[in-house]
């Protein structure tokens, strides 16, 4: 059980990067068909794009933002000389649960701005609620993995680990949203 929330005591560096890359490829291949765009560090929305490139770009931007801010937090708040390859590898592997979110995306319809104005027009189904709740659980799992990645790679403990992680996560989320929303895809 501990391994699914913290595999990083056993896997880090290049190995985590390769396994994470494998999961990323699988996630992106599925998300292209289910239209699940990971448009933020902890975001997932169903957006139908014609090309696969927006899905790839959003995934990479989100990953690099969380890796960058966790690494910067490590430089500021920890004395340990960590390796960037560990941060990059473990954060990419932390995104593995998003594979399940991309599958759940098949059960979630695209909701445009017009439908949002009149919520009664949205065809809510039991599948929609189950898939949304399941996606939320998977995103919480991803955040737990991000936290353990940070704790192991940076060697930071206690309350300091919690508040610096929350700060880095908020900054990474904000930065990823700024970058992603400045890109215009069709």
């Amino acid at each position: 059980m501990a391994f699914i929330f913290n595999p990083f005591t056993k896997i880090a560096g290049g190995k985590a990067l390769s396994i994470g890359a494998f999961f990323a490829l699988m996630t992106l291949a599925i998300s292209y068909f289910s239209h699940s765009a990971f448009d933020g560090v902890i975001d997932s929305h169903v957006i139908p794009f014609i090309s696969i490139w927006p899905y790839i770009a959003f995934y990479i931007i989100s990953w690099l933002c969380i890796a960058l801010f966790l690494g910067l937090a490590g430089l500021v708040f920890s004395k340990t000389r960590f390796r960037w390859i560990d941060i990059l590898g473990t954060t990419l592997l932390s995104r593995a649960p998003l594979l399940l979110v991309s599958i759940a995306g098949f059960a979630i319809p695209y909701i445009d701005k017009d439908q949002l104005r009149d919520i009664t027009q949205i065809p809510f189904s039991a599948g929609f609620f189950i898939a949304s709740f399941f996606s939320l659980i998977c995103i919480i799992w991803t955040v737990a993995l991000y936290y353990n990645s940070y704790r192991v790679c940076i060697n930071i403990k206690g309350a300091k680990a919690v508040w610096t992680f929350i700060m880095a996560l908020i900054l990474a989320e904000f930065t990823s949203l700024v970058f992603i929303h400045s890109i215009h895809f069709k």
Partner: protein
Amino acid sequence: MEKRLPIYCPSCNNFLDVEAMNCQHCHTKVVGDYKLPPIMLLTAEDQKFILDFVKASGSIKLMAEQMALSYPTVRNILDSVIEKIKNLEN
């Protein structure tokens, strides 16, 4: 049975010092007041880690392979051992 070097006083829990040493060959006994070096005051587990680390030529990567742990986990163990030695020295 493996004998463990006692480092804590069973009465007050402070570190023990060495008072007597004995030559197994000629049975000469040296009596004095000697402090145990900081490494000897670490737990058996930490001492084993240091020994293995030296035998691995100080390679964290090799240690990670031997211990079946990730590189940062081994580095964190090393950091904690360094911290303990620093505290014992002060």
